[in-house]
């Protein structure tokens, strides 16, 4: 029996005057780590806000965790977490007070709320800074705090709107690792909205590409990569030229990338021909990355189709 759907929408529309932010969105999303991709202004944040009832729906219907969004908003939000893109906090509060308060707003008794607030602050890696006023936090600390307030009430699904905005590479990696663990280890469905394909590629299993208020692609990352088979990146310690020559003999386009990897277009559904070639050359690659730019290519292709449409 398939798991129950977490998000269901039918002809969902959201109009701001003459602008159609969402234009007939139909989705049926199973639990998992879901990446919501799209260029700026595509409608990703609006879709999240409509599902959370932060924006009223113009027409159509939406269900979150099996409940009707329009009529059961409070009940839904008890089981949902949200980290907005903007800096949102309650001024004058210290970090642990703030997370405790957010838990209370979801219906947790004070003692439990306080205990969970500390647990979640531990989980997101905040130390003694939790006793400082939020107004003094760095961007990285604020992002961690936003994540802590979103999961403090143990939600079944968490919406993360641009969770790595303004973070340095190390901070980005840490936040993405935490988000990844939410689904992989603890079974909490995660919906990550981002325009950074690399982030989504790293942690998500399902991809939804949105542009001009419409869903262009909704599939698993695995399927998307399968569609883009025929290329791979080979990481070698040495003997790069040897492989390049062998590829040219096979009429496989091969180029050296700036990161030192060799990109080989072997034009086959599987990696076997490439592996055989490497074997024949007695080359031991450090790593082979199949379909390395599948997501980016799918994304650009979907956008091109969307732009070409009337």
């Amino acid at each position, binding site marked *: 029996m398939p798991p129950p759907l977490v998000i269901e929408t039918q002809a969902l529309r959201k109009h701001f005057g003459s602008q159609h932010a969402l234009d007939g969105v139909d989705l049926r999303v199973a639990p998992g780590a879901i990446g919501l991709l799209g260029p700026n202004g595509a409608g990703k944040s609006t879709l999240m806000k409509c599902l959370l009832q932060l924006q009223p729906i113009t027409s159509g219907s939406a269900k979150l965790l099996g409940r009707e969004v329009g009529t059961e*908003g*409070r009940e839904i939000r008890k089981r949902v977490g949200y980290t907005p893109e903007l800096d949102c906090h*309650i001024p004058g509060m210290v970090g642990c007070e703030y997370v405790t308060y957010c838990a209370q*707003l979801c219906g947790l*008794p004070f003692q439990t709320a306080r205990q969970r607030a500390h647990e979640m602050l531990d989980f997101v890696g905040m130390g003694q800074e939790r006793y400082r006023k939020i107004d003094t936090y760095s961007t990285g600390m604020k992002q961690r705090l936003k994540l802590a307030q979103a999961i403090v009430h143990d939600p079944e699904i968490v919406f993360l709107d641009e969770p790595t905005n303004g973070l340095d590479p190390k901070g980005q990696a840490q936040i993405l690792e935490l988000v990844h663990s939410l689904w992989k280890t*603890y079974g909490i469905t995660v919906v990550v909205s981002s325009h950074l394909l690399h982030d989504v590629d790293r942690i998500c299993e399902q991809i939804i590409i949105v542009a001009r208020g419409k869903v262009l692609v909704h599939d698993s990352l695995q399927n998307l990569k399968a569609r883009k088979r025929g290329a791979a990146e080979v990481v070698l310690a040495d003997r790069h030229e040897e492989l390049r020559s062998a590829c040219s003999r096979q009429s496989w386009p091969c180029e050296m990338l700036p990161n030192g990897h060799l990109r080989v277009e072997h034009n086959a559904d599987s990696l076997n021909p490439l592996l055989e070639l490497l074997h024949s050359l007695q080359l031991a690659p450090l790593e082979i990355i199949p379909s390395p730019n599948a997501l980016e290519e799918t994304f650009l292709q979907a956008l091109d189709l969307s732009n070409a449409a009337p």
Partner: protein
Amino acid sequence: MPLHDSSYKHWEGAHLGLWRRRLAITSNGLNACLENKAIRNLSVVCWTTSLLLVGILFAIGQLLVPDSIIIQWVENLNPQLQAFATMLTSWLAQNPGLSVRAVQNVLFYYYSVYLLRLTIFALGMALPFLITRDLASNAIIIYSSKAVSRGDYLLGKFATACGLIFLTWLGPILAAWVVGNLLAPDWSFFWHSRTVLLHILLHGLATATILSVLALGVSAISQKEKTTTGTWFVWWILGGVVTPIALQTKPWLQHLGFNYNVDQIALAIFRIGDDLRTAQDELPVLGDMLRTVSASTMQQLNSPAITGAIVGLLVAMSAAIVIISKKVKPE
């Protein structure tokens, strides 16, 4: 390696009801208000004045006891006052209902009207903690993403304003009534002053509702604390300045200030003009002295401009509700 388990833990407990979530908003708002030193000090001043009123009520109660320290003190002060004190005491003893009710009614009217000034000041200081700061920091989005609606948020903030009013105004008044009557020579004081309690509660609930809605409206005007606080104090002070001028020129202008309108409601509830008339007619010696009160003052006390006050307050509250509904949104 961390010293303790920092992994994620699931929670299995039951969620608390909606009213507890609203209460969390209220208590958080009140805590934020009380972190402000000025508001804390004002609360202390308000409760101190309550002690003064208790002292006055105790002294008045002692007038009904023939051999009380106060009567003896008055007699020792001036033997000529002895006859007057005896006469007053016996009159008060014969009309306990009238004397206790009328005296307390007048006292509590003036006490509540003047103490309200401090409360209005405290509300002005508390405006940033109601809605202004939440607007400035986008906290409305956080509230809206939790298991509370916009209505719950506003209800919580409304209760915060009401709580502050209770702390600085209605609380001290009610405490003065209870303790003042507890210290009275007779338990019957509670019974004789029951209508006063009713007046206090009516006035308190009406004023708390009105001022809370107005405070929320002004608090939602802007994201800047100085703007909202300034608007409140300018409105209050201008109302006070305009009232005497408007009385001579265009009387309806008096209703532009909320404090004048609230005062008129207090007059309509406490009806102290009736008490003054009764005292003029029935109180020996002192009644004659009270007849010197000017006709215009008696006119103001007897017929408050209640219709204008209600209309003025309804208009102001409607404007506040419109501002709140336009400004307090997640986006």
